[in-house]
C-alpha cells in the first residue's frame, strides 16, 4: 500500500502510527466515500533533529530526505572538479601560512636568508621536481606533432601554427612575456591544468600559480635538436619560439580542437611599453 500511494502515505505517517496509516488508506479509496485525509497538527521539527531521533517507526518523508542528503554528499566528494578546486584552495592556504611563518622567523632571529624546506608547511606544498617528467613527455609530443626530425628546421610554418592552435599544453614550460597585470610579468612554470580562463602553473620555487589568460602573452620554446644525446650549449641556434595570445585563447582544450577562430580587432593586443621603443 505504501508503494502505491507514496505521497498520501508520507503525509499520513506524520500524524498517525504505521498500522493506522494502512487502515486509513484502504478506507480512502473505498467505493462510496468522499476521499479525505484525517490529519492532526504536528510540532515543527528541524531536519537535523529528525536524523538524531531515528526510531523504528520513522516516517517515510524523513527517510527520503536522509537518502537525498547522502546522495548529494557523495556526489560532491567524488566530483573531480570540486576536489581539484579544494586542492588549489588548500595549496594557496599553505603558501600563505608558510610566507607568514618565514616573516615572523626572520624578525625573531634577525636572519636574512631562511631555508623554506625546514618548515612543516612546506611538506604540504606541490613540488616542481615531480612535474619534470611531464615536461619531458610534452617536448616529445610537440616534436612529434610538428614533425621535427633530424633536419633541425621547421617545415611549413603555417601548418605548424594550425596544429599548435589545437594542441595540448599540459606539461608545457611557459613564461609570461607581456601582461596587463604587471605582477605576472616574467613568471614561468610548468602547466598542470588548462582551464577556460586560467593556466594553472607550478613555479620553480614549489608554488602553485593561477595565471589569467586575458590580456597576457605566453611564450614557449621548442628545441629543434635532439637534446638528450647532443650538448645543449653547442646548439644555441636551433630553437623555435612561439607565443600564445591569451586573449584569443579563452577555451578549454577539447573545445579548442574543433573551433573555428575568427580574427578580431587588434586594439586590445597592444601594450603600453611598446610605445617607448
Amino acid at each position, binding site marked *: 500500500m505504501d508503494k502505491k500511494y507514496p505521497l498520501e502515505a508520507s503525509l499520513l505517517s506524520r500524524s498517525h502510527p504505521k498500522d493506522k496509516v494502512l487502515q486509513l488508506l484502504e478506507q480512502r479509496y473505498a467505493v462510496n466515500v468522499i476521499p479525505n485525509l484525517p490529519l492532526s497538527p504536528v510540532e515543527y521539527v528541524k531536519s537535523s533533529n529528525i536524523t538524531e531521533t531515528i526510531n523504528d517507526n520513522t516516517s517515510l518523508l524523513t527517510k527520503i530526505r536522509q537518502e537525498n542528503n547522502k546522495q548529494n554528499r557523495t556526489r560532491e566528494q567524488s566530483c573531480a572538479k570540486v576536489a581539484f578546486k579544494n586542492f588549489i584552495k588548500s595549496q594557496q592556504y599553505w603558501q600563505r601560512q608558510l610566507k607568514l611563518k618565514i616573516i615572523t622567523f626572520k624578525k625573531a632571529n634577525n636572519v636574512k636568508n631562511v631555508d623554506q624546506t625546514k618548515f612543516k608547511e612546506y611538506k604540504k606544498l606541490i613540488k616542481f*621536481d615531480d612535474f*619534470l*617528467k611531464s*615536461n*619531458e613527455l610534452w*617536448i616529445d609530443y610537440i616534436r612529434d606533432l610538428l614533425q621535427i626530425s633530424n633536419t*633541425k*628546421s*621547421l617545415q611549413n*610554418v*603555417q601548418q*605548424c*601554427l*594550425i596544429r*599548435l*592552435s589545437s594542441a595540448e599544453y599540459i606539461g608545457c*614550460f611557459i*613564461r609570461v*612575456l607581456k601582461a596587463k597585470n604587471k605582477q605576472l610579468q*616574467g613568471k*614561468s612554470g610548468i602547466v598542470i591544468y588548462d582551464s577556460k580562463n586560467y593556466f594553472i602553473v607550478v613555479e620553480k620555487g614549489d608554488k602553485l600559480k593561477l595565471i589569467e589568460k586575458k590580456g597576457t*602573452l605566453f*611564450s*614557449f*620554446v621548442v*628545441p*629543434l635538436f635532439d*637534446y*638528450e644525446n647532443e650538448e*645543449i650549449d653547442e646548439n*644555441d*641556434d*636551433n*630553437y*623555435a*619560439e*612561439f*607565443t*600564445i*595570445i591569451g586573449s*584569443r*585563447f579563452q577555451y578549454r582544450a577539447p573545445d579548442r580542437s574543433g573551433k573555428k*577562430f*575568427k*580574427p*578580431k*580587432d*587588434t*586594439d586590445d*593586443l*597592444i601594450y603600453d611599453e*611598446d*610605445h617607448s*621603443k
Partner: protein
Amino acid sequence: MLADLNIPWPQNDYTPLTTAQLAQLKNTIITAETLGYTHLAINFTVNIHEIKIPGNDINPIIKQLDNFEKLKEFTARGLKFFSRITLIIENPNQGQNLSKFLGSFNILSIAPTTEKALILACGNSDVDIITFDYSKRMNFYLKHKTVGGGVKKGIKFEICYNSLVSSNSLEKQSFLTTFNNLVRVSRNQNLVISSGATSCLNLRNFNNVLTFCKNLGFRENKVFKNTESVLLGATLKSKSYKQTVMIGENPVHEDVTGKRNIKEIDSGDVFKEQLKRIKLNKQATK
C-alpha cells in the same frame, strides 16, 4: 615607433615604373626616414571599375622593388616596409570579392566614392582602413550610423594631410570640410593620420601635423595606438593562425621565420636552464 601608412606608389595600373618615378619614390622614402619614420606602407591605388586585375601577380610592389637596390640599404638600417592596396569602389556589386587581395597585400583599404560603397566597406570585416579622397569635395553626406558600425568592427579611418599641404587653395578647403565631417561622425574614434605625399616636399614632421589637427578639434590621443594596431593586424595575418598562436614574440618589429638563436629570445636562459634540468632528471632516473 612612428609609422606612415600611406606612401603612394607612383603608378595607378600594372605598367612598370619609369626611372623618373622610381627616383621620386626613392626621394620620398629618404625624407620619411630623416623625419624619423620607422615603418612605411607603400600604397597601390586601383580603380576597380577601370582596370582589370590579373589572376596572379596581383602585387606590383614586391615584384618591382626587388630590383630596386637602394631599398636594401634602408632595410639594413632598420626601416620596415609593408605593402598596401587601396580599392576605389563606386558600385558595391563589384566590390564583393576582396579575399583574393588578402593573401598578396599586407593591408587592405577601400576608398568609397558613394554612400552605398561606404556601407559595404563598413560591414566587411576584412577591411583594415577606409580612406576618402581629400582633394575633392565629397559628394555624399557621412552618417554616424554607418561609420559607427565600422568603428565597432575595428576598422580605422584615415586622414591624409597631403592636400592640406598642397598649394591649391580649393584642395585645402575640401580637406577641412571632410576632416571636420569625419571627426564629428566618428566621435574621434579609430582615426589614423598618414601622409599620402605625392612628392617628397609634402611630407611633414608627425608632431607638427598632430598639433595642427588638435587645433581643428581632433581630441583623441590614441593615434599611435591605432596605427600600431593596423600594422599588428596586418602582420598577424601571415605570422599567426587566426590570432591564436604566433611565431616569434613581436611580429611588427622583428622578422622571424622558423629558426632562432636562444640569446635573441627574451630571457632565453630560463628555457635553457629548464632543458638542462630535464636532462639531469632523466639521467638520474636511469
